[in-house]
């Protein structure tokens, strides 16, 4: 399976997860979006040596993964892009910070090792919580929540359109690469002589498609306004869910 195919399958899988008839998917998107951002904020605000606090913060993603019936393996797979960057930044901590800050039995553990582990956990939780959001909330609902937070409609419409066309253009990218590989076997990527014509022609086609999209939208009554998901009211359950977790985050952050 090609890399493009893998990415498209990932998008496909997310779309299927978002459409489930599951209570987490039905929850108000504003609650999920705000809670995710607040959670990440709380986690990353932890001191670099506060390993025990960071460990306890695992409660939110792990519990919610169970409640939302999500696969932890899929979420861990998403770490592949972020983990090397976090590792590259944190890997030097054990070398630079050698002061012993704790003992595990007879083994002395330096501050650098603790801060590196804390950093890894923070990165891991941030990815898990973002996955929890996107696996239970459609982009339309996220856009609706963004509008409720007064994010300008131009920006929200652009996000919505990008989401609509990613799959279509992603499929085109896959067909282009397959066609190219069939004509240029045993070649790792696109040859430099084909960079311009290949991508350039695709770009012109996409610009023309944008023109057609605009005409279609205009014919359907588009005048700069766009509908963002279903209009929903916050229920008592939504508010309770948000409050319980917010209190939990404050308690964990402050220490028991």
């Amino acid at each position, binding site marked *: 399976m090609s890399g493009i195919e893998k990415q498209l399958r990932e998008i496909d899988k997310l779309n299927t997860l978002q459409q489930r008839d599951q209570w987490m998917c039905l929850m108000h998107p504003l609650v999920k979006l705000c809670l995710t951002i607040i959670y990440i904020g709380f986690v990353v*605000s932890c001191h670099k040596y506060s390993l025990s606090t960071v460990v306890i913060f695992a409660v939110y993603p792990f519990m919610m993964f169970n409640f939302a019936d999500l696969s932890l393996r899929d979420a861990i797979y998403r770490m592949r892009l972020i983990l090397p960057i976090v590792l590259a930044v944190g890997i030097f901590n054990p070398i630079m910070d050698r002061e012993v800050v704790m003992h595990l039995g007879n083994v002395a553990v330096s501050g650098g090792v603790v801060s590196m582990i804390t950093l890894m956990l923070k990165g891991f939780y941030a990815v898990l919580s973002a996955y929890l959001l996107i696996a239970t909330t459609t982009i339309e609902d996220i856009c609706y929540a963004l509008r409720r937070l007064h994010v300008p409609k131009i920006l929200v419409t652009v996000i919505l359109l990008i989401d609509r066309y990613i799959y279509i253009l992603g499929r085109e990218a896959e067909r282009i690469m397959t066609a190219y590989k069939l004509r240029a076997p045993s070649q790792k990527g696109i040859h430099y002589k084909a960079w311009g014509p290949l991508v350039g022609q*695709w770009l012109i086609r996409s610009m023309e498609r944008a023109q057609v999209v605009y005409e279609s939208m205009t014919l359907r009554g588009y005048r700069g306004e766009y509908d963002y998901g279903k209009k929903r009211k916050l229920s008592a359950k939504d508010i309770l869910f948000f409050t319980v977790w917010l209190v939990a985050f404050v308690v964990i952050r*402050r220490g028991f």
Partner: protein
Amino acid sequence: MHMADALLSPAVAGTMYVASAGVAAYSIKKIREEDDNKKVPVMGVMGAFVFATQMLNFTIPGTGSSGHLCGGMLLSALLGPYAGFLTMIGVLLVQGLFFADGGLLALGANVWNMAFYGCFLGSMLIWKPIMKKGASKAKIIASSILGCVLTLQLGAFSVTLETLASGITELPFGVFVATMQPIHLAIGFVEGLITAAVLVFIHEARPEFLWGVGAEDERAGKLSKKATIGVIAVVAALFAGVVSLFASAFPDGLEWSMENVAGTAELEATGGIYDIVASIQNITSFLPDYAFKHSEAAAGTSVSGLVGGIIVVALLVAISYVVRLGSKKTKSE
């Protein structure tokens, strides 16, 4: 070059959000002034196009590796700085959500590091001045390479500053910069070549698609060099001053708020219920002394603290697992 949430402190992430939101608000104002509804669908489709082209691998001649397209410079050469910037925000948000490339908290920083430099500086300081008397193959190649290299260098430098200001790494500033800049010099050069190849083709096939070509007398929407440098200087000063102030003076927002409300960072209580609860706590606390040796870190980390944390997490996750099994059973019945 996407930053992860874990690499930023909330103060730095918040500052970068404010800076990026300011540029976004200015861009939206400019787009609204143009009153061109057609631009929004084009931005959406081009955003998806950049996203899709980043899935393609381009062979780098003479090496065994491959490179990717530079989205910021390409978008600004086609859509201009304002529409390009807003499109890049959409691309970065969708990348962060769909592929965990970046993060929600780090979005402001990523927008600044990639979209602001790529779209604003790339188009205003490089693309537009070079193209103002018309485009040619040489000019497009020069501006694409120069634009990608310069904007990636600035982006990489910002990543270094933001990570250091967040207090994430123990790496000295000099070593960090010396590691980041040369890597991004090579990446910028390759991305510049790919962007140049695509834009040269567009110039030959559909020159009307290119933005800002032959715009010598066009004054509308122009941000002068002085104004651009001024914006960068103000943001740099803000970044250096305010962020470091927050990082050192207000390490904990909660304590800061408490101090403002109650006049003290630690609330003390005595009497009736408090004493009863405190005595229960003393009896039940089987993992006392939560603190590091030689450290005053918030909750501290000791073996007992760590074990306690793991027990709490395991217990709660186990409860959620039981609830999940229970609900599944109820459903099947």
